[in-house]
């Protein structure tokens, strides 16, 4: 079953417009959050009403399609559990891959497979890895959404047996607390304490496992204010943008290491993607 169009148009018409209006006003974030919570409850009753599922569907089609200069599908792609094995793979990423001799998260691994199996030019793919507001997702976003959704219900089980996996975790932790840039910001500036908010937006305390377990498994997430799915790589790149740093490379060592740190913080947290965010 590839395309599942089910009553989510009605759900969006009923809920997304008031939410978007509230965001535009920029004032009543509390009200926005309440509307989103109602929306989330409806999604629980009918997960296929989440607009992010369109990207999951597209990703599923892309995964099996013979594409690229090599006219190959991604069914030979090894995400850590063997070629073509998708179920539960996202819950065990990032991990060390011997063929690449480095630690990769889902997105950098997909990029690797698109390059090595399908013959795509990786440099061209990373030039525009993120969709703009109200555009449909890029291929990488769709594939990421699809593979991540195949771990829904599974708990994060970080892989730390290889030396390079442990090094990635240590690097990610150091990066989380590293202050830099014209504003002296670190990730910990906003995400290192409980119960804080920026303006009215609540900030998860990510260096504390309890809160990390609740939120990390919601990414990739559908963002109501953008009308697009945002992947974990995009989420981190956006934080660095806000920290007044240059655009970090897609699937970089830094963003993979931070992902390893966050996943390790969220160890045991249940994956439920695509999440729903403002």
């Amino acid at each position, binding site marked *: 079953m590839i395309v599942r169009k089910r009553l989510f148009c009605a759900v969006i018409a009923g809920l997304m417009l008031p939410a978007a209006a509230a965001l535009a006003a*920029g004032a009543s974030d509390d009200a926005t959050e309440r509307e989103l919570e109602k929306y989330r409850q409806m999604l629980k009753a009918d997960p296929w009403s989440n607009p992010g599922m369109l990207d999951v569907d597209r990703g599923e089609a892309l995964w099996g399609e013979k594409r690229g200069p090599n006219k190959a599908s991604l069914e030979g792609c090894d995400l850590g559990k063997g070629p073509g094995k998708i179920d539960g793979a996202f819950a065990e990423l990032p991990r060390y891959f011997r063929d690449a001799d480095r630690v990769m998260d889902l997105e950098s691994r997909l990029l690797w497979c698109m390059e090595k199996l399908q013959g795509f030019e990786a440099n061209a793919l990373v030039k525009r890895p993120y969709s703009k507001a109200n555009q449909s997702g890029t291929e990488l976003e769709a594939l990421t959404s699809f593979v991540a959704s195949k771990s829904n219900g599974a708990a994060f089980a970080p892989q730390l047996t290889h030396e390079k996996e442990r*090094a990635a975790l240590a690097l990610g932790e*150091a990066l989380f607390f*590293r202050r830099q*840039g014209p*504003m002296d910001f670190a990730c910990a500036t906003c995400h290192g304490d409980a119960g804080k*908010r920026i303006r*009215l937006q609540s900030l998860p305390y990510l260096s504390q496992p309890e809160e990390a377990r609740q939120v990390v498994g919601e990414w990739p997430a559908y963002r109501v204010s953008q009308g697009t799915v945002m992947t974990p790589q995009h989420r981190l790149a956006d934080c660095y943008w806000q920290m007044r740093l*240059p655009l*970090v490379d897609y699937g970089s060592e830094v963003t993979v290491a931070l992902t390893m740190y966050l996943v390790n913080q969220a160890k045991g947290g249940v994956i439920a993607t695509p999440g729903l965010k403002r």
Partner: protein
Amino acid sequence: MLRALIRVAVVASMAGSALAQGAHDLDRGALDRAIKDSWRQAQPEWLQRLKQDDTQALCSLYRNNPPADIAAAIQAREKAAIKYPAAGVALMGDWKKGERLAQSGYGMRFTDYPPRAENGGNCFACHQLDPKELSYGTLGPSLAAYGKTRNFADADVKAVYERIYNPQAAVACANMPRLGASGFLSLEQIRDLTAYVMSPESPVNK
């Protein structure tokens, strides 16, 4: 002095000595290499922003909780670098301009170039100020009625100016950006923000 302290701290943490207690360090070479490799598409003038100054390096090493001697050294150095308006110019400017600056979060993101507005102080992102503004953050303490509570004393006007210019002159490794020291805000803007916090006419103190 600070350079020496960093060296001592780093060397000590490698040696695992008591001096390094509270320091969180890993192979800095690995960290610097990863950063270099992760912004390959960035322009050279932007890469400068990833380099840490001594204060950022120490605050990262100690996760904002430096030992007393290092904290004192940071504060002394940051305090010595504060610049003040020319003689005869008041530390308080125009609170109305300050209010606009406190609301604006514009400036220095890579999407903010070429600049379309002046940089904002973005105070409301983290502080309560004018109690009528309900959209305020809680990363920093509430500053509602800050001036009034202090009887608008001159010493507090100066302290607020210095706190905005460089919070680490008072509290080593404070979370707040060093808005004057980094050049993010001008002296003129900091005077306006000081007035917004400390002026009896400002809605912050009504």
